[in-house]
């Protein structure tokens, strides 16, 4: 059986100019391969380059050197519009602070990714949003404003939003960072279910040992370099 490569990075390097002059290197020659269907946790201290790596994999930053392909697509070759379309179709984002739009209802938040370029009929988008909310246990909250939900519920709405267009890759930045332990466990279970049902690849940046433990593989970053990977998380 052939294994599909979800993310392939070779010699990946990302530098940022400093305001007062000079350059800081956030990633320095990262080589990484993530297979489709894997759950990979990226860990490391603050400033190690975790979020930078996640942003590059999530195609919201392409100012890198080296090679980076997501599902075989070299990101640097895409123009701005193509990259946005790529993000829209191939990648789902889950943030630590949920980032739901407060003025929209839960359902509208979930349907938001379909607003950008997706050629899907409105009725289908709505049906799918209902279905996803059912799946994360919030089917009855479709018309509620997100501010009325608890933290865990909001994160589940964010996950439903990330899954609307069925992207093969979910990138999650500290997905349980704002949640209590019990709620975090529920979210981790949800990630497992998603991978199980859909074969979705998950890349998680975390400080939480529980999250790291739930991953198939753990990538440890230090000063922009990978200093260790384990096939099975400890």
């Amino acid at each position, binding site marked *: 059986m052939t294994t599909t490569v979800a993310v392939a990075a070779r010699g990946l390097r990302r530098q940022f100019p400093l305001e007062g002059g000079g350059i800081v290197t956030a990633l320095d020659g990262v080589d990484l391969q993530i297979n489709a269907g894997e759950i990979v946790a990226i860990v490391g201290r603050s400033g190690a380059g975790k979020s930078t790596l996640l942003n590059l994999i999530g195609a919201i930053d392409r100012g890198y050197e080296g090679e980076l392909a997501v599902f075989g697509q070299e990101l640097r070759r895409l123009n701005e519009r193509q990259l946005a379309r790529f993000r829209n179709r191939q990648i789902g984002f889950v943030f630590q602070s949920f*980032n739901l739009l407060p003025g929209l209802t839960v359902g509208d938040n979930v349907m938001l990714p379909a*607003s950008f370029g997706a050629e899907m009929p409105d009725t289908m988008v709505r049906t799918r949003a209902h279905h996803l909310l059912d799946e994360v246990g919030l089917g009855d909250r479709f018309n509620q404003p997100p501010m009325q939900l608890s933290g865990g519920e909001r994160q589940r709405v964010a996950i439903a939003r990330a899954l609307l267009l069925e992207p093969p890759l979910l990138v999650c930045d500290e997905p349980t960072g704002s949640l209590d332990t019990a709620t975090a466990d529920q979210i981790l279970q949800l990630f497992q279910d998603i991978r199980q049902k859909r074969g979705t690849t998950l890349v998680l940046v975390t400080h939480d040992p529980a999250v790291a433990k739930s991953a198939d593989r753990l990538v440890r970053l230090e000063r922009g370099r990978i200093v260790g990977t384990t096939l099975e998380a400890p």
Partner: protein
Amino acid sequence: MKLRRLLQLTFQNLRSSRVRTLLAMVGIIVGTALLMFFLGLGQGLRERVLNRIFPVNQLELEPRAVQLFGTQQVVGQAPLDDSRVKQLAAIPGVVRAFGKHKSAFPARLWGGRELLGYNLFTEAFFDGMPVEILRAELESFEKPNGKPASAQKPLRCDVDLDCPAGAMCQDAMCQHVVWSQHWRDTTVLALPCNKNDECQSGTCADGHCQLPNAQPLVRCMLEKAAGNGRDLEFDAERGLTAKPCDAAGGFCKTEQPCPERMYCAADHPDSTLGYCEEPLPAVINPLLLEVFNSDMARSLGAVPVGSLAVLYGVRFHVAFGDSFFTQDAARPMQQYKQAQVVGFSRKAPELGVALPLPVVAHWNHRLRGNDSQGPYDAVLLETADNEAVPQVITAAESLGFSLSRKSQAARTAGAVIFFTALGLVLLALVVLAVAGVQIAQTFAMLVHERRKEIAVLRALGATGSDVAVLVLGEAAMLGLLGGICGVGLAWLGAMGVDAAAHQWLANVPLLPEGFFVFPSWSAPLAIGVSLVCCVLGAAIPAGRASRLDPARVLAEA
């Protein structure tokens, strides 16, 4: 980005920053309201004030005069006759052209007793106008919406005064009269003359012009010489009388040997002999009534005249050759006649009376001698629309004509109104531009506050242009709402000004029904300008939003 979603996000954003949005809209609302207000005011002043006094598409032209020894002289030009009028009529954009003759002789008139209770006396000025030009206009005044204004149920009567305004007593019944039909070439008139060349057509016989194909004039005799015209009275029942006639102060009854609707017009003030003739058909400008009703009536202690309709059929006297101001003509050259109001026209002189052209031409000729400029001394042109006016003036000038003082004044007044309105509109545009700057600041702040939200949208697949469209859409919505509110405010302001004007300026002459005319394009234009100001104001913040680096913003968050 899908339109429905764009609108949804736009409304959501506007709602979430309600106070700031409303504050930003204040400038736009005020600017749009001012723009709309001044557009309406400028148009209103042109249409409802200026156009009532000087119809814009109506030009009065005279042969170009040169300054010669301190006076205006027309030299070296062919007489102003029908061929030259036809030349002017052929100018592209001209609908009609006709020659007119202004009176250049002394005359005075008096009358109004039957209406006001006493006679008014004034020096008289006349414009002679062709019948065919005024007929349609007289009919439009007399029959608004195609129906006679004075159509009434028949009433029994003994004299005209028993009948409602505009009707006349015929066969003991009040009959509706189509007054415009009294304005005709065939009016039986006795025009005095001493020799043949005083008569425009026909010959001079028995001291009067005998016109070809005209009804023969009937000789009549007054019982007593009319005497000084200032003592003449017109009474509907008794006809022309002189007072006092006897010691008891009674009226002298005059002979009335003339057919119905005619009277005996003495050959001259000292003669008892005359000819039967119909009253001169007279057309007056409706503005005259407005001027009378405003200040004149009050200062004369008279009651304002309610409507034009009551003036139909009112008779007054005209003394040709007699004047309050200048040297009278020799008494044998003078003649006292009756005239009757048969209609209203904006082409008639504002402070004078329009009479059939041959009458004015005749008296000019009789009292001022040969007129070297031909049968006309001015030409009135009507253009198809206001836009054609400048080209028509240029073409007319190349034919040796220039605008009369009246038309020049109209053009000047029009230009003053135009440039004043333009200045005020520019002021409104400046207010809108300032509001646009305010919008720019507001949106710059909003974009900064929503950086994270924008970054999330970008992460979810929005392109930079999607984000820009979102910000511009929000600005457009603001412009649209602000524009609609501004237009509403302008309308309310206009209504308020009109109401205040009628409350406080009721006695000002020529006060229009309203000072504002909002053309159909003005509201869309004002809203469009408001929209453009907002969109332009938000353009720079929208550009910044579209270039926002989502990775950096999310990292900051």
